[in-house]
C-alpha cells in the first residue's frame, strides 16, 4: 500500500479514456462502479469539451455483485452499441471490475455486436494513466490496421507523389496536443509532406485501418505512441521519427529527421521564429544562469531542460519525471546537466527537492505550480497533469518554431525583466518604489493570483522592518545581527530568500553562531565560486 495525497497520473483506464475521447466513432464500455464516472469531468470541465466522452460505465452496485454484473455489462454494451452505432468498441474493466473478473471481452464476443470489439487488459493495481493510454492506442492500432493497405509506390503514373506521414500520440486532455498538432501539420505541409492521419486525436476506426498507407510515422508523444510506432515499424516497415520538436534546436533536428525519412532534401530557408533572437537580444542577458528546476513527464522534462540550458542560458538545478517508464531518458539528461535525477511520483518528495535546490524558476506540472506558489517561486507549466488554465483559448503550441516562441514568452514572463532588475535595486529604498510593488509587468495579476505572486515580498520584507529598528534590538534567533539583517534588506527581494538561505547554510556548515555583515559576504563569495 502506498499513501498518496496528490497523484500525477490517474488509473490506466483514464489513459484509455484519453485515447477514446480523442478519437471519433469509437465507443468505450467500461465495467465500473458509479463513482468512476467522475472521469468525465476531466474532459468536459478541464478541457472544456462540449461533448461527453464516448464512455458507457456499467455502474454496478453492491447488490449486483455475485448475481448479475456480467448481465449488466452485456446490457450496457448492447445499449451503447444501439444508441451510438460506433465503428468499433473498446471494452475493459476499472480497478473494481478487475477484481470481480467478469471478462468483458469474452462477454462482448458472445453478443454478436456488429463492429470490431477490442479488449483492453489494463492492470489497475500496477499500472497508470500513460501506460493505459499507450497500451490502448497500441491495441487499437493492432486490432484495426488493415495489413493489406500499404503506402503506394513513391513514383506512380503521374510521376513522384508527395511523401506521407502519420502524426501519432496526441490524445484528449494532453498538454497542448491540439496546438502542437496544428503547428506540426503546418510545418509538414511547408516541407511538402502530407499527413496521412493524426491519431488517436481526430481519427476514426476507419482512419486507423489505413494507417499503413503512410511512408513513415512521427512519434510526437512517445509516452503514448512509442509502443504503437514500434509495432508499425515491424508490421509495415514504416520508419519512426523520434525527435520531439520542442525548442528551436530540436525542431531543426526534427526537420532533418523528417526529411531523411521522407527522402527529400532539407530546405535551407525556413522561418525559425523569433525565439533565437529574443534570447540573444540584450534584455535577455539577465536570464543567464537563472536556476531552473524541471519536473514533468519524461519527454517534456528532458526537452525543457535542453531548451532551458541551450536556448535560454538557464542553469538546470533539478530534473525529474513522474513516469518511471521514461526514467532512463531522464537519467541520461540529468547526467548531462550534472544534477541528481528525481524519478518519483511522490508529490512531497518533489516539493522537498525543489525547496532544497532553491531555484529561481520552476518548470513543472499543475502540481509544481502549487508547490511553487507555496514556496513563492515563479513557475510555468510544461507538462501534464494540467488544469483548466492550461487549455488557453488562443493558439499556444509547445512544438515547432511557434512553440519555441511560446516557450520564451511563458517561461520568461514570470521572471523580472532585464533592466527592471537593476532599477529595482537602484530605487529599492525609494518610498514610492517599495519592494512590495513587485515587478511591474505582473501588475495585471488577477485577484486570485495576486497574493501568490506578491507573497514573497510580504514575507521577505520582514528583515527590512527589523533592520530599521534601533541597534539595541537583540539579534533575532538564528543568529543574525541587526547590521547583517540591514544588509540583507538591501538585497533585491527576488534573490533575498536565496541569500538568506545560503548565508544560514554557510554559517551552519562553518560553525558560525552569529551572522554578521561579514558572514553574509563570506557566504556570498563561498557560493559564488
Amino acid at each position: 500500500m502506498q499513501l498518496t495525497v496528490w497523484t500525477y497520473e490517474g488509473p490506466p483506464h483514464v489513459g484509455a479514456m484519453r485515447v477514446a475521447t480523442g478519437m471519433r466513432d469509437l465507443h468505450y464500455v467500461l465495467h465500473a462502479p458509479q463513482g468512476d464516472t467522475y472521469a468525465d469531468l476531466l474532459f468536459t470541465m478541464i478541457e472544456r469539451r462540449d461533448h461527453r466522452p464516448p464512455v458507457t460505465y456499467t455502474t454496478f452496485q453492491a447488490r449486483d455483485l455475485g448475481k448479475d454484473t456480467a448481465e449488466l455489462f452485456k446490457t450496457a454494451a448492447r445499449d451503447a452499441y444501439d444508441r451510438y452505432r460506433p465503428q468499433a468498441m473498446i471494452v475493459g474493466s476499472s480497478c473494481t471490475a478487475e477484481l470481480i473478473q467478469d471478462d468483458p471481452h469474452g462477454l462482448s464476443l458472445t453478443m454478436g455486436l456488429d463492429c470490431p470489439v477490442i479488449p483492453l487488459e489494463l492492470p489497475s493495481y500496477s499500472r497508470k494513466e500513460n501506460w493505459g493510454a499507450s497500451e490502448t492506442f497500441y491495441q487499437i492500432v493492432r486490432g484495426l490496421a488493415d495489413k493489406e493497405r500499404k503506402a503506394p509506390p513513391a513514383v506512380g503514373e503521374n510521376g513522384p507523389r508527395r511523401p506521407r506521414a502519420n502524426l501519432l500520440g496526441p490524445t484528449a486532455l494532453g498538454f497542448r496536443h491540439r496546438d502542437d498538432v496544428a503547428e506540426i501539420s503546418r510545418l509538414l505541409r511547408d516541407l511538402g509532406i502530407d499527413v496521412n492521419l493524426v491519431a488517436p486525436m481526430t481519427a476514426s476506426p476507419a482512419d486507423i485501418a489505413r494507417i499503413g498507407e503512410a511512408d513513415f510515422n512521427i512519434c510526437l508523444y512517445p509516452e503514448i505512441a512509442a509502443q504503437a510506432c514500434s509495432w508499425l515499424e515491424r508490421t509495415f516497415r514504416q520508419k519512426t521519427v523520434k525527435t520531439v520538436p520542442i525548442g528551436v534546436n530540436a525542431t531543426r533536428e526534427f526537420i532533418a529527421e523528417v526529411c531523411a525519412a521522407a527522402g527529400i532534401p532539407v530546405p535551407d530557408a525556413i522561418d525559425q521564429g523569433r525565439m533565437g533572437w529574443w534570447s540573444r537580444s540584450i534584455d535577455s542577458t539577465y536570464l543567464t544562469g537563472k536556476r531552473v528546476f524541471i519536473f514533468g513527464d519524461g519527454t517534456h522534462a528532458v526537452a525543457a531542460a535542453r531548451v532551458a540550458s541551450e536556448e535560454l542560458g538557464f542553469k538546470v538545478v533539478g530534473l525529474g519525471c513522474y513516469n518511471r517508464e521514461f526514467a532512463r531518458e531522464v537519467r541520461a539528461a540529468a547526467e548531462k546537466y550534472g544534477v541528481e535525477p528525481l524519478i518519483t511520483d511522490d508529490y512531497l518528495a518533489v516539493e522537498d527537492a525543489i525547496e532544497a535546490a532553491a531555484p529561481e524558476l520552476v518548470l513543472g506540472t499543475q502540481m509544481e505550480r502549487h508547490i511553487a506558489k507555496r514556496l513563492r517561486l515563479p513557475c510555468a507549466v510544461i507538462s501534464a497533469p494540467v488544469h483548466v488554465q492550461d487549455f488557453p483559448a488562443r493558439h499556444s503550441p509547445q512544438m515547432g518554431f511557434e512553440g519555441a516562441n511560446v516557450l520564451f514568452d511563458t517561461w520568461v514572463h514570470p521572471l523580472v525583466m532585464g533592466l527592471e532588475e537593476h532599477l529595482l535595486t537602484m530605487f529599492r529604498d525609494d518610498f514610492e518604489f517599495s519592494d512590495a510593488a513587485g515587478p511591474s509587468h505582473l501588475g495585471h495579476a488577477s485577484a486570485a493570483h495576486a497574493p501568490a505572486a506578491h507573497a514573497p515580498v510580504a514575507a521577505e520584507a520582514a528583515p527590512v522592518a527589523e533592520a530599521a529598528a534601533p541597534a539595541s534590538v537583540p539579534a533575532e534567533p538564528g543568529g543574525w545581527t541587526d547590521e547583517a539583517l540591514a544588509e540583507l534588506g538591501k538585497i533585491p527581494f527576488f534573490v533575498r530568500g536565496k541569500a538568506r538561505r545560503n548565508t544560514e547554510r554557510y554559517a551552519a556548515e562553518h560553525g558560525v553562531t552569529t551572522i554578521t555583515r561579514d558572514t553574509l559576504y563570506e557566504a556570498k563569495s563561498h557560493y559564488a565560486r
Partner: protein
Amino acid sequence: MSAGPASGCDAPPVGVDGILRERGQREVFCGLTGIIWLHRKIQDAFFLVVGSRTCAHLLQSAAGVMVFAEPRFGTAIIEEKDLAGLADANEELDRVVTRLLARRPDIKMLFLVGSCPSEVIKLDLSRAASRLNTRFSPNVRVLNYSGSGIETTFTQGENACLAALVPDLAFTDDRQLMVVGSLPDIVEDQLTRLLADLGIGKIVSLPARLAGQMPAVGPNTKYLLAQPFLAETATALDKRGAIHLPALFPFGAEGTTAWLHAAAQAFGVPEARFEQVIAAPRERARKGLALYRERLNGKRIFFMPDSQLEVPLARFLAGELGMELCEVGTPYLHKGHLIDELAALPPGTLISEGQDVDKQLDRVRAARPDLTVCGLGLANPLEKEGLSTKWAIELVFSPIHGYDQAGDLAELFARPLHRRDVLRV
C-alpha cells in the same frame, strides 16, 4: 421496481406511487466525495481512503484546485502485492497508519474510509479500526465507514461518516437539541443563535468541529436533520434513544421557518416568542428572495440526480420563487424524511429515483428547461446544446441553509439565467 413496464413499451416505468424509477448508467459521484467538505468541517480529523488509484484520482479531481500543502485526507493505494494476501494487506494498512500518525501529531480522529476495491476484497476495516484503536488510544480515535461507489452515492458518504460517529458518542440524559449534518460554520452559528434565542436550552451539533468535542446523546435528545441525506445517521441516533423532529429542510424562508418551528414546538416555545424571534430574519429572507423572484418566476428547471438535495430545493424553488419543475431526479428517495417535502411539491411533479443517464438526457433535450442542475461531467455538453446549467456540487459546497442564505441560494439559480441574458457572444 414497484411497477415494471410491459416489455417493448418505451413509456418511463412510473410506479404506482407516481415515481419514476430507473436502473441504468448512473452519472453520480461516489460517497468518497464527501471527504472534500467533511475534512474541512472536522478540523482535526484525517480521512484515509483504503482504495485504488482511481479513488485517489477522484478525490483530487473533485477537490479541483483546492490543493493544500498536506490536506487531511489521502489514499492508501492498494497494490498488486496487497491483493495477493489479505494478512499482508492488514499489516500494510497498519504500517501506513502508523507512519501517517507519526507524521501528523495534530490528528485526533482517523476515519478509515472503505472503497469499492476494499469492499470487494473484503478488507475488514471495522476490525482494522478496532485493532488500531487499541494501539493509538487515547491520542487518536479510529473509526471507519464506507464511501464506496457500490454502496454510496455522493452525499451518502457524509451519511455513512456521521452514522459511524453516533455509536461512539458519549451518553447524556440532558434535555437538548441536536442539529445533525455538516454545515458551513457560519451557517451553523446562525441557526444555533436563532434556536438559542427561542429559548431552547442546550443546542449541540453533529459533527462538532473538533474530534474531542463531539456531542453526547441520549433519550432526552431531540434532533433536527439539516440535510436530507442522513438516513442511516438518523437510524443510529434513534438507536441511541434520540427523537427525530420531522420538518421541512431549512431552505428558503418557509423551509427555515418550518424547521425552526418543529424545534420550537418540541421544546414548548410559546408561539408569540417564536414569532418575535423569527420575524426579523424571516423578513430579511423574504426581501432577499424578492430580488430574484421576477427573474426565476415561471422558469423551468430540471434536476438530474446528484446530492439528494433535489426534492427540498425543488420545493423551495417552486413554492417561494414560482419556478416550474420539469423533473426532479434524485439518486435515492428517502420517503420517510421527505414526507413533508413531497407533500409541499406542486401536484403532479415528476420525481425520478435512480438514473439511466442517456434516457434522462433525452428527456432533458425534449423538455428544453431553462435550467438544468447536473453533475460536473454533464454541464458543458448541455451548455453546448444551448441549455443553461448549474453544478449540483456547488449547492453542496456553498452556504445555502437558513434565512440569511435564502437570497444567496436563489441567486445561485438566477446567475446562469442572468448570464445567458447578458452575453452577446
